């Protein structure tokens, strides 16, 4: 663990190096890509990126919870959550198999 963090700006830079477009255009394309990814997760409930993994949205039922500070019982509404499932190929690469 090196403690480094890859951010969107660095990804934009990596793409910028490979095109003739200016940085603002590349940033726009990356934002569009993220928008399409979010839409796919919402609409299809799944986004599969081969060699990387799969983002899946699933429904969580409403459940009773408690506010730990006030001890009040509250009903948590049903909601959608996203999980990432790792591809076998990427799992093998991460573990040098």
């Amino acid at each position, binding site marked *: *663990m*090196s*403690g*480094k*963090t*890859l*951010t*969107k700006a*660095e*990804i934009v830079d*990596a*793409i910028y190096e*490979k*095109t003739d477009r200016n940085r603002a255009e590349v940033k*726009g*394309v*990356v934002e*569009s*890509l*993220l928008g*399409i*990814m*979010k839409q*796919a*997760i*919402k609409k*299809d409930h*799944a*986004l*599969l*990126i*081969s*060699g*990387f*993994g799969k*983002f899946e*949205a699933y429904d969580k039922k409403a459940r009773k919870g408690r506010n730990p500070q006030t001890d009040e019982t509250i009903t948590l509404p049903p*909601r*959608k*959550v*996203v*999980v*990432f499932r*790792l591809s076998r190929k*990427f*799992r093998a*690469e*991460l*573990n040098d198999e």
Partner: protein
Amino acid sequence: MNKSELIKTLSEETNIPIEEAAMVVNTFVDSMKDALTDGDRVEIRGFGSFKVKDYGGYSGRNPKTGDMVVVEPKRLPFFRAGKELKEFLND
């Protein structure tokens, strides 16, 4: 949606050639994979973040047969959806 559909949609929506859309998607994915392979965190504002967790090995048993098995140490990435993605999915 899969990766080729993602590339096609990006190409149509942004009016860039399909080869360029493919380069964008591949560079995006490869950058994240490289960072995670190096043990770095990945943080994509508005979408989510990834970090790699290390698990130590242990010896366990096959619950069906009772045989001893050695579970090798492993590294697995974890994804946390960002606030914007969570809100987008739920409204």
